[in-house]
């Protein structure tokens, strides 16, 4: 320690006066570069999407005709698919992630914590195409042969929600895609939740326990309020991944440009539509419509992130 101190003191004062501003300039340049990059991407997307937006106007967002032969394009089906699959992923992913993070930080015996944490990190590192293949070859048959027939028989007739679980048990479709996405986002959300739960000062938790609070009450009244920003951030990270995920979804969603009430029917998402069709898209309007899809995804992501910021800001104010 003292060696470093001596070195700093002994250093010629001049070197810092040149290097510090240079360092600041370089870091500022990098930071601005990121901002510029986002704007450049947005600009390129708008320029590329312009012919399609000019041709179709708002009907691009409100119709579900996706017909390369007649060159009429509407993005409603992929938008619907993107939102629904992400919603399913969040509905399943958030509670499970919360449970895992809670168990690892509060309840698990010490010897089990590390293996679970490592397993979660490992899951996060698996490339998405592996999830896709696993989904198609393992999960889809399981759903088609076991889960979906049972659900269709037992829930398919219920009023209101029955229609969500009707149709033939294909094993591929929106529900399967949502399930795969849930499995993919769980490691992300869990890792962030676990990390932020761990930074809660032990003193606060122990005080609550000392007052006779249960684990759940400590979680609800001490840990969650303390870590709100981090938890929401982790969820947003997962949602971002779910919205943009391409390969795994393409494998299992069935890639059909239709809007179906039933979750068991095939659908499409924005990113998998682009991945499927961009290579062979011929003609200005077709290519431009696919870029417009990209722009829509960009805007959706911005809205989600912006919404999260607003929500956080409101929470801060209420506190």
């Amino acid at each position, binding site marked *: 320690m003292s060696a470093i101190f001596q070195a700093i003191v002994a250093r010629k004062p001049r070197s810092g006066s040149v290097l510090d501003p240079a360092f600041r300039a370089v870091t500022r340049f990098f930071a601005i570069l990121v901002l510029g990059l986002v704007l450049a991407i947005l600009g390129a997307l708008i320029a590329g999407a312009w012919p399609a937006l000019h041709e179709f106007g708002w009907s691009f967002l409100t119709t579900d005709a996706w017909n*390369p*032969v007649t060159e009429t394009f509407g993005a409603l089906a992929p938008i619907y698919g993107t939102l629904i699959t992400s919603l399913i992923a969040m509905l399943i992913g958030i509670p499970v992630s919360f449970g895992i993070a809670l168990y690892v930080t509060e309840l698990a015996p010490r010897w089990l914590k590390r293996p679970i944490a490592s397993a979660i990190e490992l899951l996060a590192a698996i490339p998405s195409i592996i999830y896709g293949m696993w989904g198609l070859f393992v999960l*889809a048959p399981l759903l088609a042969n076991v889960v979906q027939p049972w659900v269709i028989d037992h829930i398919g007739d219920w009023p209101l929600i029955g229609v969500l679980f009707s149709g033939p048990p*294909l094993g*591929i479709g929106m529900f399967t895609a949502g399930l795969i996405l849930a499995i993919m986002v769980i490691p992300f959300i869990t890792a962030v939740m676990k990390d932020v739960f761990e930074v809660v000062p032990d003193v606060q938790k122990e005080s609550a326990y000392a007052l006779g609070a249960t684990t759940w009450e400590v979680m609800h009244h001490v840990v969650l309020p303390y870590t709100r920003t981090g938890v929401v951030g982790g969820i947003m990270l997962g949602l971002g991944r779910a919205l943009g995920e391409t390969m795994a979804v393409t494998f299992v969603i*069935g*890639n059909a440009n239709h809007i179906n009430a039933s979750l068991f029917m095939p659908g499409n998402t924005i990113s998998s539509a682009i991945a499927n069709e961009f*290579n*062979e898209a*011929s003609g200005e309007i077709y290519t431009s419509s696919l870029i417009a899809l990209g722009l829509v995804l960009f805007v959706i992501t911005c809205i989600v992130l912006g919404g999260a910021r607003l929500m956080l800001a409101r929470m801060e104010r209420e506190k």
Partner: protein
Amino acid sequence: MIMEKIMHKLLAAALIGGALALLGSPGHAADVKTLNGAGATFPYPVYAKWADAYQQKTGVKLNYQAIGSGGGVKQIEAKTVDFGASDAPLKAEELQQAGLVQFPAIMGGVVPVAHLEGVEPGQLRLTGDVLADIYLGTVDHWDDPRIKELNPNLDLPDKRITVIHRSDGSGTTFIFTNYLSKVSGDWKKNIGAAKAVSWPAGVGGKGNQGVASYVERIDGSIGYVEYAYALQNNMGYTLLKNRAGHFVAPTQETFKAAAAGADWQHAQGFYMILTDQPGAKSWPITGASFILVHKKPTNPRQVQAVLKFFDWAYHNGDQMAAELDYVPMPQSVVKRVEQAWQQSIKGTAGQPLWPAK
């Protein structure tokens, strides 16, 4: 227009990469060492095999990037490659506009494959009309009277038909939908023929592989794949009724029959889609894969070398093609192709590039 050009450039950069651009640069072509082509995925295995044999014989290397037919057309228009390849032929006007020459290189067939418990490959018989209605979703059960009528000997279950189609744009889809448009008025009116269409029913799989795995997965499904793919995976191919009224199986022989019956002489710019061809033995969903080169190339020596390569393949590659379950072009067609080379492909001074010295 500008946007389109930018797009082409972007695609070129993204797909081919810098290395290819370096290798393919025209100019110092005193001895052509490397040829660059890009396009259709369907003929890729046979081009690769030919290229390997050709390199061993002549030392000339062929780089073929299987980026898809649409990509192949874009690349050759942008002149980033020496030749493009497409499963769907360009129309004579399009060729004229882009200054391109087109010729068929290899043939194959598209085969409907069904997965139905108790039905063996080659047992199910369909007509084009019924196939179109299955894909339109109007015939949606296997025990539909129209299917039963064609298959009195089969015990067809009361099972829903799950239609499988390609989710990516594809030359295979083009050939298939072209056939359906020819045999079904409803299909032509409502859907049409293209590399990607607005499918009224079913599930989309990516690539032949995707369609095949969905068909294998789902009992009661029907899809369409390249012949080689159906054969190598032992899939449940169907018999189809051809224009002459006979039920035929997809084989080398029936593909060749379709090509032989075709009227190449009047096909301007070799615009020929071999679907629904006359002939007692013709397989109705046959298609050729095409090569595109510039009429007045800026890199004449490269293009000349491309012609040499395909000339060699026409005359020496039949066996290799057959081994991979492709169908080589009949010699009568090859003769026409080489005549067309001589007439329309010119060097910078206006001299024909073919026959090559």
